[in-house]
């Protein structure tokens, strides 16, 4: 697997296509959109087999959980400037309203604190307007293996 190596400089824009091509996020079709110093933004295009109810054509909440989880991880590596394995300890989503039918959902995660062993993120998921979110989320991640400040 060509995962990025620890200690290499982490450029989300460059690494995201490889990171998002495989496994669960590859299957979902998660795409890189943007990043800043301590945040990262991913999007999940609408797809007919990812819906929660046949009659509403809205992305199910499960894929949105995955999207927020991945955006959270990416925001941590972006803030740290390196890729290190992390494990999600907990993740909470507060759903504000249903996503619009046949709309992509975008998640922007902000890594607001990193300690020796943990990283904390928060963010919003929206379907077009960032100030009218579908969900707010917060997550706590643990670094795996060697800890570093």
């Amino acid at each position: 697997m060509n995962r990025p190596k620890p200690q290499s400089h982490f450029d989300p824009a460059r690494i995201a296509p490889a990171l998002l091509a495989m496994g669960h996020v590859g299957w979902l079709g998660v795409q890189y959109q943007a990043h800043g110093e301590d945040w990262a933004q991913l999007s999940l295009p609408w797809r007919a087999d990812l819906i929660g109810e046949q009659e509403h054509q809205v992305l199910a909440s499960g894929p949105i959980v995955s999207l927020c989880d991945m955006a959270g991880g990416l925001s941590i590596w972006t803030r740290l400037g390196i890729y290190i394995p992390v494990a999600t300890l907990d993740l909470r989503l507060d759903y504000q309203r249903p996503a619009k039918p046949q709309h992509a959902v975008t998640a922007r995660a902000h890594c607001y604190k990193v300690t020796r062993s943990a990283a904390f993120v928060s963010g919003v998921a929206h379907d077009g307007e960032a100030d009218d979110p579908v969900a707010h989320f917060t997550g706590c991640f643990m670094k795996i293996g060697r800890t570093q400040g």
Partner: protein
Amino acid sequence: MNAVAGTLTPYAAALGITVAEEAGESGAPVLAIAFGSQIEGRPGVLHGGAIGGLLETAGYAAVVHALGNGAEERRLKPINVTVQFLSSGKPKVTYATGRIVRLGRRVANVAVEAWQDDRERPIATAVMNVMLSAR
């Protein structure tokens, strides 16, 4: 297709979630998912989001089960979900089942657990609040 499988979301079916038991120990259905690349995170490890999807699906299945015949008149909407990841998911079958903590008129509070080899050693848990609105 059994009765419970018919209530799973298109997303759940596409991900590969199946019904292991129509009525487990708590009465609620026990769902299962086999390991595969579509739920893989780090190589050889279950993706947290996929575990979250399994937990949520099991939570909804528990609510539908608890509502019984009344389920058809209700539309279930997520209010929130908190997932706790307890240990990494290994490349093997993962199970999940929900327990209704409280079934109110408007809100159901559900506790969900996911496990692999040992029912007593969950790999992840979730707490969900589900809005029960009229169709």
